[in-house]
């Protein structure tokens, strides 16, 4: 992606972000049952969406890397995992800040929270793996495998956690995730936030991806220079 387009995306997401914030704080009506804290939802949901999309890309990039063996896919997977982790952290943070006023607790083992938390742990492990070994094709393969395995696990996690929570109904959960968006303005605010975050995500991902690509190319160039230096030294 050309840097012009990327720059444009950056400004667009920034502008949309401001619009979304204005909407959330000043424009949408307050939800009747949950009160003002419900407004966390407008940014909470886009964060979750971005995190899931990013983790999906990690798995896809992993498959492509193992299949095609091109370094590019490894860079993409790394960039996506990092960003996914940032947004997954945000989902947990905002979820917690929402749970406290509404349910009276910082944390509850509700099915969505639990699933997100498990994802956070899995991809935390993935990033730890990446940082615990040098930058080599071997690590790229390891990361690809872990990325794929983690993604395979997601459906099983969702099903099992849901079953776990329905069999043991928690006392705390009164009116769980059923967000009745009764006012059309709520829907608009959510859509604007979603757009803002999606574009922001694309911007961030392409930025980080381009950076990792540049690093890879730089390393390759360094290799060639080292080779030329050796050749020059031969005479």
């Amino acid at each position, binding site marked *: 992606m050309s840097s012009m387009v990327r720059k444009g995306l950056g400004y667009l997401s920034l502008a949309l972000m401001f619009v979304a914030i204005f909407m959330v704080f000043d424009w949408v009506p307050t939800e009747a049952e949950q009160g003002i804290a419900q407004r966390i939802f407008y940014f909470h949901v886009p964060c979750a969406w971005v995190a899931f999309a990013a983790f999906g890309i990690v798995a896809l990039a992993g498959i492509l890397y*193992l299949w095609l063996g091109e370094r590019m896919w490894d860079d993409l997977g790394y960039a996506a995992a990092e960003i996914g982790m940032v947004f997954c952290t945000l989902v947990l943070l905002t979820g917690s800040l929402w749970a406290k006023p509404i349910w009276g607790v910082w944390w509850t083992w509700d099915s969505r929270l639990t699933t997100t938390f*498990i994802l956070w*742990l*899995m991809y*935390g*492990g*993935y990033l*730890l*793996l990446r940082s*615990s*070994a040098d930058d*080599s*094709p*071997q*690590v790229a*393969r*390891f990361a*690809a*495998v*872990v990325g*794929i*395995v*983690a993604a*395979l*696990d997601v459906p*099983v*996690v969702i*099903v*099992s*956690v849901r*079953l*776990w929570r329905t*069999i043991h109904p928690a006392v705390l959960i009164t009116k769980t995730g059923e967000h009745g968006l009764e006012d059309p303005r709520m829907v608009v605010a959510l859509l604007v936030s979603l757009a803002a975050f999606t574009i922001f995500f694309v911007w961030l991902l392409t930025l980080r991806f381009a950076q990792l690509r540049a690093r890879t190319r730089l390393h390759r160039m360094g290799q060639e220079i080292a080779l030329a230096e050796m050749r020059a030294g031969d005479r």
Partner: protein
Amino acid sequence: MAAFAAILRKDLRLELRSGESTVALLAISLLILVVMVFALDASRARGAESAAGALWVALVFSGMLGATRALLAERDNNCIRGLLLSPIEPSTLYAAKLAAAFIFMAIAEIGSVILMVLFFNLNFDITLIRLAPILALGTLGFAALATLLAAISNRTRMGDLLLPILAVPIFVPALIAGVKASASALGGTPESAIAEWLKILIAFDVLFVTAGYLLFEYVVRED
């Protein structure tokens, strides 16, 4: 198939000779059960549920050890390289290592179940039989996952510390299903209540045995 049998036989022979892994696995299981007894106050806690929980904690930890040990056997004299050079497929090697880890874990679990009955004041009766398929499925799933991931953690700077960090979160669904199913089995609930959990365990096993079989090649390879 012949190569699979040869590797498994070799691993079992090595194990019979030293007995290191089994003893270590049993010791870990025993210690975990002891810790759980004190942590949960076995005399007061709801027997079946705490016992099931303790049993699965022991399974997870002994499993990590079991998978690591099965691969560790190849580390002396760089035997793993000998296997990579030989005309066997990496997937065959995976299958053999998975089988070895499964057997080590199964032995440790038989020990854990006996200890669990004693420590948590349960009865040796027919309900224990109902645990067998649940534990077998959980063990297979964990062995499948840990064998694949141990081959990775083995060769990173963090070493075996990385294994639990990678394996435990991914194992969570099977853990939930396993603990719930075991508690129901021990508590004497009807089979139908367990069926849902067994389905999750089976799905987990199918998924991860297949994934390990297909992906192992990429993790055992040298650089």
